[in-house]
């Protein structure tokens, strides 16, 4: 077997595919190299839930057979990837990160995995996650049967959640890309903290069939990759209607960077207070540079205000009510007590007590949010803000502690509620690494109207053409 070198572990999907087709290495060699690395280093970050080496090697042999007969199935063919352990793989354990489900096995594959398999993509492992994707609300990063997600940039810090293993595994070069899921922040947060590029698609663009539900009206599945271009390549494959998921919108995604809008025609809404005030002081110069970089690309920056709504109360009410309904049997049976975080247990129990009138009121307010967001987005095409206003937190820091700068009634919130708000209205978002602060990654997010992923992806690609932040690697 030829030595295929360490650089492959940090190559993009498109780079790997080119080298595969140029026969620099075979799919079997590539897959073996990634399986070895995932198994060797996965535990170092609490990132690996389950290695799928045997299955992966079988698939890789099939891909090599196809390639030898010049049967090309696109850029994902022969490229390994990992999937958050809330996606079912037939016959394999799917834990949802939670002890009560430690032996759970489904007899079917999640739709997204079936779609990827058809293109020759090779699933090498299931990746760790916060238990039940954080349903109920957790206090500590250790709220997982796999332990806290450890950040490859500093293992005393959290990788972010709930797609913690996906963030760590992509950042540490254990997989070229991964599938994560987001209800409210679970792709964007680990992408930001681990320094990878993460795309949360429009609600309804990607099937959730075979994925653990947490909130039927908010759950999304999306890619976490090295580049915005890779995110587009993966989204093109996993998007589309699925009769098994009644929420799918019946739309496909045609990745078309060749038809990208000219940057000078794009109006980008931002809130100066995010960059000057809400961002932790040490991060401000980096976020300002990112804003300046987009300005240099030619976009027009427009000061914008989010419509005023009780975003936090609506987000909590919707996710708690739906999540506790999903896990009603777990809660009522008492097995919920096996979870690793006591606050989460209490949160799941309390969710069953939320009155129907509160849930309905939250869903009615959501309707108004959609209307106001549509109105706001007639004057701008994209919103930009720090993905998180800080670097990854220490593992021992409680996640529900007081914010470093408390909210006060007269203080302009800027876009600080953007993650919750954009999830509530179902808009897509792209998180782009934009630099390091004290050796830890920070990221900027772009949010656009439903089903306009091409717009934010093309902006991400333009940004990544002129910067190298997405190429930064932790010392693994």
């Amino acid at each position: 077997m030829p030595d295929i070198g360490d650089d492959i572990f940090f190559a993009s999907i498109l780079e790997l595919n080119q080298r595969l087709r140029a026969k620099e290495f075979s799919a079997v060699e590539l897959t073996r190299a990634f399986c070895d690395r995932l198994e060797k280093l996965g535990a170092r970050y609490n990132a690996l839930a389950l290695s799928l080496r045997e299955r992966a090697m079988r698939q890789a042999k099939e891909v090599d057979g196809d390639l030898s007969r010049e049967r090309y199935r696109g850029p994902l063919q022969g490229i390994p990837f990992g999937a958050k352990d809330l996606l079912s793989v037939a016959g394999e354990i799917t834990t949802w990160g939670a002890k009560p489900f430690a032996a759970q096995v489904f007899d079917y594959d999640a739709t997204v995995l079936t779609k990827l398999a058809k293109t020759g993509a090779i699933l090498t492992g299931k990746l760790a996650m916060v238990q039940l994707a954080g349903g109920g609300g957790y206090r500590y990063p250790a709220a997982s049967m796999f332990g806290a997600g450890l950040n490859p940039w500093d293992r005393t810090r959290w990788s972010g959640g709930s797609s913690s293993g996906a963030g760590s595994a992509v950042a540490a070069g254990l997989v070229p890309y991964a599938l994560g899921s987001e209800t409210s922040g679970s792709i964007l947060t680990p992408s930001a903290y681990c320094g990878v590029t993460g795309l949360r698609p429009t609600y309804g663009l990607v099937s959730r069939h075979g994925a653990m539900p947490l909130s039927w009206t908010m759950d999304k599945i999306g890619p976490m990759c090295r580049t915005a271009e890779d995110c587009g390549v993966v989204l093109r494959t996993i998007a589309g209607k699925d009769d098994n998921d009644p929420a799918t919108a019946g739309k496909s995604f045609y990745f078309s960077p060749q038809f990208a809008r000219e940057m000078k025609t794009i109006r980008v809404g931002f809130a100066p207070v995010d960059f000057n005030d809400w961002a932790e002081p040490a991060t401000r110069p980096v976020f300002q540079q990112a804003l300046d970089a987009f300005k240099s690309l030619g976009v027009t920056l427009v000061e914008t205000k989010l419509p005023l709504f009780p975003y936090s109360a609506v987000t909590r009410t919707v996710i708690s009510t739906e999540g506790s309904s999903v896990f009603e049997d777990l809660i009522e049976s008492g097995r919920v007590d096996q979870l690793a975080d006591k606050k989460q247990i209490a949160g799941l129990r309390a969710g069953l007590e939320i009155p129907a009138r509160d849930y309905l009121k939250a869903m009615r307010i959501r309707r108004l949010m959609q209307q106001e967001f549509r109105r706001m987005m007639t004057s701008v095409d994209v919103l930009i803000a720090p993905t998180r206003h800080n670097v990854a937190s220490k593992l021992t820091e409680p996640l529900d502690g007081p914010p470093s700068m408390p909210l006060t009634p007269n203080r302009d919130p800027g876009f600080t509620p953007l993650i919750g708000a954009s999830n509530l209205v179902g808009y897509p978002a792209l998180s782009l690494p934009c630099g390091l602060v004290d050796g830890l990654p920070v990221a900027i997010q772009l949010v656009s109207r439903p089903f306009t992923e091409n717009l934010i992806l093309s902006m991400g690609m333009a940004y990544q053409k002129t910067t190298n932040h997405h190429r930064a690697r932790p010392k693994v």
Partner: protein
Amino acid sequence: MSKPLANGVTRRDLGIALAAASAAVVAAQETAPTEDLLGAVREQVKTNSQTLRAFEVPTATEPSFAFRP
């Protein structure tokens, strides 16, 4: 230098990972008893409820979920 184990992970690596994970687990378990936490979470639910009820919504506003038969 730490000697690698069979799987290539050094004892030092394992030690750091286990210490970090167990410290966080211990911290998580050292929280107040579940009853207190449940009370605190119920208070949060109540606050959310009050916030939602104080927010005026036009009578004709339908909830934002969609059901397609």
